[in-house]
């Protein structure tokens, strides 16, 4: 038992600086604020056009049970929207970071759960929103934040100077949590294709028909072209099944992780360009994981690049004039 706990702790709680987590916070919050923010206009339109929910989400039912009366009204949702934006700005600059992150994540959760209480739901935001909430329970403001500046100033005043970057054991778990969630969701999607669709899912016609339908409805020329390429559709179907089903290997073989993250960004971008599936939150998460969970991958590549650059300069210098 002790061995399992040690393994668990070694996976989730390795010592690290707080910089990768802070970087993840800045990218995730900026993306949420400037790219993924639910539309206030849409919230108000749903509230005005519907006197009741069609399929209220659990979170909305919980709020309805606790908060009496007029919570689900345009004025309250307008206030909620601006409170969420305010919290997002504070979380971005890292002031009262944990509280701001919690308010931002909760505000976003309520707004999305509200939109999905009218019989509609999509998968795009779920993992990203869980990650955003996880950031609120981690030391996300220890670096690259106003909180960190204030803390350093206080330390200087009291005579303590911390030249060494702080290393703690709770700075990586939100990133690993996002990685595990992505692996779970991709595996679930891939396995369901194999269980319900069988190997026939890779016959090419399946992808052609799905792509043709989505691309025609959304008027996407690249998708309409792809739907007419049977052989390419067979290869892309095989790639889809392999990528989704085996993404989880990146959890157990960290050296493979960068390749899975890059393949994932390509996969999601391809789905958007051909079928209009806007999983931008997944793309952002994969990008965050690529730059924060695999620093060694980048260190080696950057070193090779500069060595190659230096070698080229030296060779040039040796050339006779």
């Amino acid at each position, binding site marked *: 038992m002790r061995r399992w706990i040690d393994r668990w*702790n070694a996976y989730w709680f390795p010592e690290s600086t707080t910089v990768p987590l802070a970087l993840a916070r800045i990218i995730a919050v900026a993306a949420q604020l400037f790219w993924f923010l639910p539309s206030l206009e849409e919230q108000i339109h749903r509230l005005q056009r519907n006197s009741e929910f069609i399929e209220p989400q659990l979170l909305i039912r919980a709020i309805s049970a606790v908060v009496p009366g007029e919570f689900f009204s345009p004025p309250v949702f307008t206030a909620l929207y601006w409170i969420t934006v305010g919290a997002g700005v504070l979380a971005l600059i890292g002031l009262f970071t944990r509280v701001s992150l919690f308010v931002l994540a909760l505000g976003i959760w309520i707004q999305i759960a509200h939109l999905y209480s009218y019989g509609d*739901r999509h998968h795009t935001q*779920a993992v990203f929103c869980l990650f955003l909430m996880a950031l609120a329970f981690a030391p996300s403001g220890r670096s690259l934040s106003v909180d960190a500046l204030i803390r350093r100033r206080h330390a200087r005043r009291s005579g303590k100077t911390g030249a060494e970057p702080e290393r703690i054991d709770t700075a990586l778990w939100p990133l690993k949590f996002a990685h*595990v969630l992505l692996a779970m969701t991709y595996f679930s999607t891939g396995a369901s294709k194999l269980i319900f669709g069988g190997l026939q899912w890779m016959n090419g016609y399946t992808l052609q028909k799905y792509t*043709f339908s989505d691309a025609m409805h959304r008027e996407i020329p690249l998708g309409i072209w792809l739907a007419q390429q049977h052989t390419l559709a067979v290869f892309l179907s095989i790639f889809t099944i392999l990528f989704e089903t085996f993404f989880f290997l990146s959890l157990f073989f960290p050296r493979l992780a960068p390749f899975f993250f890059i393949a994932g960004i390509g996969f999601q971008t391809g789905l958007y360009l051909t079928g209009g599936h806007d999983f931008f939150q997944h793309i952002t998460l994969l990008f965050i994981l690529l730059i924060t969970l695999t620093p060694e991958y980048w260190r080696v590549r950057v070193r090779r690049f500069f060595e190659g650059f230096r070698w080229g300069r030296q060779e040039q210098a040796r050339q006779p004039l």
Partner: protein
Amino acid sequence: MEEGFFTRHRRTLISSGILLVVALHAVPVVYQPERATLWPILHWAMYKDSKPAGPVTTAIRETVAVSASGKREVVDPHLTGLSSFTLAKLYFRPMVAGDRDASANLLARLNEERKADPFVEIRMESTLYTITDSGIVKVDLPLISYRPEPSDSNRGSKP
């Protein structure tokens, strides 16, 4: 000593949270009634069904509501306050399958807060597109139209 205790405590809390979120993902898989209402915990089966070999086709539909004065308005998220997915699930797909109740319900929904010039007819115009060796072939499908009859007086309720 004190720091060690809090570190252990923090790890336990975080670990419990992680395990809880991971375990919750089993709920929508095994408990069908809450499959659609546990956001952000979701059932991740997407595009799971395979399609047999054969013609690649898709139908594009446009649904319009016609008012008493003859004015036509497209039935879309803006007019109804519902997303296109919900509209398709609740109304359009049942209408294609011949469900007159769905048409009646849609008309009732559209007229709910509309006092002047109420809608009196729903028309669904469909076009079938098929991929062929020579390109994409377009065929207009029969119009689906719904106009309430006296026998329909009991029809029409908002879901």
